[in-house]
């Protein structure tokens, strides 16, 4: 069980790095269209959720803290989408 958890952590790290590189590629290759902004905002939310649930270990911890942290990673990525319409 412990070994599975450690392997999971490595997978999550690989996913986080891959998403970072994807975001950079999107930003470098395409002008910030609405679609690109939405994709980046969604991936930022996903990255935040991974760190909150699996690195901070809030998934099975205090539900209020988890809710607050997740709200943060919904509100600000949402503002990225809103800013695409400026």
């Amino acid at each position, binding site marked *: 069980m412990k070994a599975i958890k450690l392997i999971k952590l490595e997978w999550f790290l690989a996913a986080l790095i891959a998403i970072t590189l994807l975001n950079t590629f999107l*930003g470098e290759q395409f002008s910030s269209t609405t679609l690109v902004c939405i994709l980046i905002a969604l991936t930022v939310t996903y990255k935040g959720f991974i760190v909150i649930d699996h690195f901070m270990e809030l998934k099975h911890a205090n539900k209020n803290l988890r809710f607050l942290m997740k709200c943060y990673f919904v509100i600000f990525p949402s503002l990225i989408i809103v800013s695409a319409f400026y």
Partner: protein
Amino acid sequence: MSSHLVEVDSAKRFNDMKTPPINPSLGIFPKSWSEESAGRIPGNIPIWVGILSELTEFALFFVAYFIAKFYYPDIFSQGPQNLHTSLGVANTIVLLTSSYFMAKAMSFIRINDKVKCEGYLWLAFSCGCIYLIIKTWEFHWNTLQGFSANTNEFFTVYYYMTFNHFIHVGWASCAILWVIFRLRRGAYSAQENSGLEALAVYWHMIDLMWILIFPLVYVLR
């Protein structure tokens, strides 16, 4: 015999006065917020007060960013193109990896493997130092290109956010050294590791803030 009992009784009362029973609840919050019903608090309550305060501080920076971007869309569209994106990507990978090392350190203290726990803490500390070196180099590179906090609104927000984050990584790296010192003194074990866990959640919070800062200043155009 009777005087001996009186002495014992008075000594007990004196000790009771010195260490009054601790009331874990202030009784001012709803019961649903209690640790029993809402779940375990990783680390301790004071570190979460600190984390939520830091999140509020960064939230103000992010709001300032979006307001400035609303008023100066062209400057914010050009701004990221003047930055050294590769250094931003490198720092993101370094911080994500440091979070991974911190999570591994927590895994090993829970099985009382203090040697591996300390090893991963040193790795996390190294990542913090690498981040600080890369960031310093980036600030220097910006200066060589002629950019400063006064260049335009984008660079003002950029320096405000990234320098603040830089300071947080700096003092959290010092905190890792303190935790390593305490670990060596035997302060943490599989049973009691709340101090180490408090540092771990604080470190992850710093990583989370960079996850938001990175796309705002390096990617979105």
